[in-house]
C-alpha cells in the first residue's frame, strides 16, 4: 500500500515535486497535500483500496504522512 501511495503522490499529485518523499514526509507541512490534492487523493484511496473515507476521517492527523494515510486505510479495511 505504501509503495502504491508513494507512486501515486509522486506521479499524479505532485509530478514536479523535487523533495524526498517517503512514509514519514510531512505531507501537509511540506505543502505536498493541499485542499485540491486531498480531494484527488480521497478519490484514489476509495477506488484503489475500496474504502469509504467519510467526514469523521477527515482529520489532519490522518493525512499528515503516507504512513498515517496507510494506517487510516488499514483501520478502515479491518
Amino acid at each position: 500500500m505504501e509503495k502504491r501511495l508513494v507512486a501515486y503522490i509522486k506521479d499524479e499529485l505532485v509530478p514536479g515535486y523535487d523533495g524526498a518523499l517517503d512514509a514519514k514526509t510531512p505531507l501537509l507541512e511540506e505543502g505536498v497535500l493541499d485542499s485540491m490534492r486531498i480531494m484527488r487523493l480521497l478519490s484514489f484511496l476509495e477506488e484503489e483500496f475500496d474504502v469509504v473515507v467519510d467526514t469523521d476521517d477527515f482529520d489532519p492527523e490522518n493525512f499528515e504522512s503516507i504512513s498515517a494515510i496507510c494506517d487510516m486505510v488499514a483501520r478502515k479495511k479491518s
Partner: protein
Amino acid sequence: MDFSFSAEQKSFRRSVVDFAKAKLASPPEGGKFWRAGFELCAEFGLTALPLPEAFGGLDRDIVDCVLAMQALGTHCRDSGLLLALNSHLFTCALPLAQYGTDEQKEHYLARLARGEIIGGHAISEPEAGSDAFSLRTRATVDGDGYRITGNKCFTSNAPVADVLLVFARTQTEASNPMAGLTCFIVDTAAEGVTLGPELVKMGMEGAPTGEVFFDDVYVPRQRILGKVGSAAAIFNSEMEWERCCLFAAHLGTMVRQLEMCVRYANTRKQFGQPIGKQQAIAHKLADMKVRIELGELVLHKTAWMKQQGKRAPLEAAITKLHISEGFVQSSLDAIQIHGGNGYIRDYGVEQDLRDAIATKIYSGTSEIQRNMIASWLGL
C-alpha cells in the same frame, strides 16, 4: 447506458413544473427577498427535498433535487429566490442532516424542512474568498464550548437567516490552512452576532446577501457540526451538492431563455422574414441549445455519481464551470437576438445577464474551477 428517467421521476418533475408555473411565475417587483415565495416553496416541500422523512423531509436523492431545481429555474422568474432556497437547503439543512448529531437534527431539521427558520452558511471573509481555507475567524475554547470572533462577507441569506453554519479556525498553529477548521451551528439571535445590512447587488436581488460579525460569540460544544477539524470535508461535500443543484436551476433558466429567444426569432421580422431565418441569429440559437444539452449531460452525470455514493469534485467543477460560463454567454446572446428590446429592463431579457454574472463568481469562481480541473490533470 440509460439516459431516461423513471416514470416516478418524470411525475415528480411534472409536479414541480406545475407548482412553479402556478405559484412562482410572477414574483413581485422590487428586487427584494420574496419571503412569500419562499413560504410557498416550503408548503410544497421544496425546503425539505433531500431531508430525512423523520424530520419532515421528502428523502429525495440528488437526481430528484437536480430535476426539481431545473424545473424551478425554467418556471420561476426569481433566480434570487432559488439562490436563497439553495443556500438554505444545500448549504445548511442538508449538511445538518448528513453530519449533525441526533440532538442537532431534533433541534433544527424539522423547522428548516418546514421553512419556519431560514438557514445559510458563512465561510467567505474579506481576506478569504477564493482562498476560502485561509479564513481568519477564530474559535477558541471556553469551558464546554467555544468563543467565535471574526467577520464573514457575501453570506447568502445572512440578512434573513435564523441559523448559519459558520466556518472558523480552531487550530491556529496548523501547518496547512485546511487543517484546524471547524463548522459551528450558530443562531443569528445569539449574543454577539450582528447581521450587516443587505448588500445591493448587480443581479440576484431576490437573494439577500450580507455581512455577519461575530464578537466573542459563545457556542456550546454541542453545536459543532461533525468533528473538530472536519469542516473542510463538510464544505467540500456542500460544494458538490451546490454545484449540481444550484447550477441545475441556472440550466433551467437557460432553457426558458432559449424558448423566449426562439419565440422572438420566429415572430420578429426584418428584411421581410423572421430574424430566425437569418443564419447569424439561427447560429446563436443553435449554440445556446448546445450549451444546454452539454450542461445537462455533465450535470446529470455528476448527480448520478453522487447518487451512487461516489465523490465527484472534478465533475462538479466541470458542471459548475460549463453552466455558469454558458449562462453568461447565452444571456449575452439573448440580448443580442432581442436587439434594443433586450437592453430594456421592462422586456425581461437583461435580468438574466445580471444574474448570470454572479454564477461565475459564487460557489467558487471560474478561475478556481479551472484550477481544480488543472490540478486533476497533475498540473
